[in-house]
């Protein structure tokens, strides 16, 4: 039977751990709410940019634009969004798993794999893998990324694509389906595409003036659309990170509770055993005196 002192010390330490995990759970919950709100606000932007692009596709041959040209894939670039901090369940490992699997497949198909990683967790991992050529690494942008944060990523991927250094760009991020379901997915960024579901429904742009030129406008709209895609992926990932952290911290708190219950029980038993033993000793002594 462990001594009561040791049991009490362990119980105290588990109690303070519970306090920390509980606090982390609450912090993650409020950060998650904000991130999901902001992610939703980007939707109207995306819709407006997409609408404009599908209308542009009626007046110009979009396929001739360098960012829309499909090429045979020899080099594939992955942009993966991970976090700087751990303790978020399988958040980072899901993305890393997805990336390594894709890289293995590419190796079989004789495709060179390159990567741009956001978040220190992912960077640390990828540095150790020789098969993946790490082009750039960014620390995570915190809970409130700005348009300025994602611009370097945007310009580097479009430059790489236009210079034909990469032939395909995939964005790996975590979709925030709900507070309990987050899925690591891959989204194809480049070559860019326009999905015109119903070409007749798209209003034509025939009598519209373009300033300074239709190509400049197309460049700009494409950039907007790529930007909003990265932006939304980033926010969905942030929301996912926080909900996964919230869930894993909730589990940790529950475990700590169970542990505290067990330790309290063991402590009480030990204390009672001590008392019983002391009484037995006293009565035993008294008995012997007779």
């Amino acid at each position, binding site marked *: 039977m462990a001594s009561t002192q040791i049991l009490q010390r362990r119980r105290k330490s588990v109690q303070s751990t519970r306090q920390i995990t509980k606090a982390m759970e609450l912090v993650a919950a409020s950060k998650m709410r904000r991130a999901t709100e902001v992610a939703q606000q980007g939707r109207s932007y995306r819709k407006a940019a997409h609408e404009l692009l599908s209308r542009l596709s009626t007046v110009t041959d979009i396929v001739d634009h360098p960012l829309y040209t499909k090429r045979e894939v020899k080099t594939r670039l992955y942009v993966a969004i991970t976090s700087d901090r751990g303790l978020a369940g399988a958040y980072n490992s899901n993305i890393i798993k997805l990336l390594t699997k894709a890289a293995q497949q590419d190796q079989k198909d004789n495709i060179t794999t390159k990567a741009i990683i956001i978040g220190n967790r992912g960077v640390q991992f990828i540095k150790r893998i020789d098969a993946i050529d790490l082009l750039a690494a960014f620390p995570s942008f915190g809970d409130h990324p700005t*348009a300025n944060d994602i611009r370097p990523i945007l310009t580097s991927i479009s430059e790489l694509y236009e210079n034909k250094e990469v032939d395909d760009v995939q964005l790996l991020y975590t979709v925030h389906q709900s507070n309990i379901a987050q899925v690591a997915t891959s989204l194809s960024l480049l070559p860019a595409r326009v999905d015109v579901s119903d070409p007749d429904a798209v209003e034509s742009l025939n009598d519209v003036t*373009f300033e*300074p030129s239709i190509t400049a406008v197309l460049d*700009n709209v494409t950039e907007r659309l790529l930007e*909003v895609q990265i932006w939304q992926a980033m926010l969905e990932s942030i929301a996912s990170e926080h909900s996964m952290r919230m869930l894993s911290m909730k589990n940790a708190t529950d475990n700590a509770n169970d542990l505290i219950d067990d330790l309290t029980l063991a402590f009480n038993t030990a204390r009672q055993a001590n008392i019983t033993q002391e009484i037995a000793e006293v009565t035993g002594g008294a008995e012997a005196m007779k």
Partner: protein
Amino acid sequence: MIHFTLYSLDGVKFDDQVYEVIIPTLDGIIGVLPGHMPLISVATDGVILVRRTATERDDQRDVFAISGGTVQVENDQLRVLVDEADSADSLNEKEVQDAYERAKNLKANAKDHVSLQNAQAMMDRHAVRLQVASMKRRKK
């Protein structure tokens, strides 16, 4: 009246009927009034000025600092898509001034072309925001 909607990455910043909007574009500053010809253009970093009614004075106009985007005018509908739009009310002149100084420092200490360019872009952006923030002061 024209309907003006200002979309930015973090939400719709303006959505209302207005009389006149002044927008900086690649080809110069344009003013959009009711009955404007259909136009699609590229916006640059600068200041958007919104006059809600014909009688509104210059210093009563709504002001937004924007960084690059797309402008679309059609059937008295004006849609502007930008990365970032800051209204005068959301900017603190002191903070923006500090940010501007920081960008200036960065530019002075830039070692290569890339960081110089980045610092210059940042400086331009903050200069616009500073302009907007000081407009707010004059209004009071």
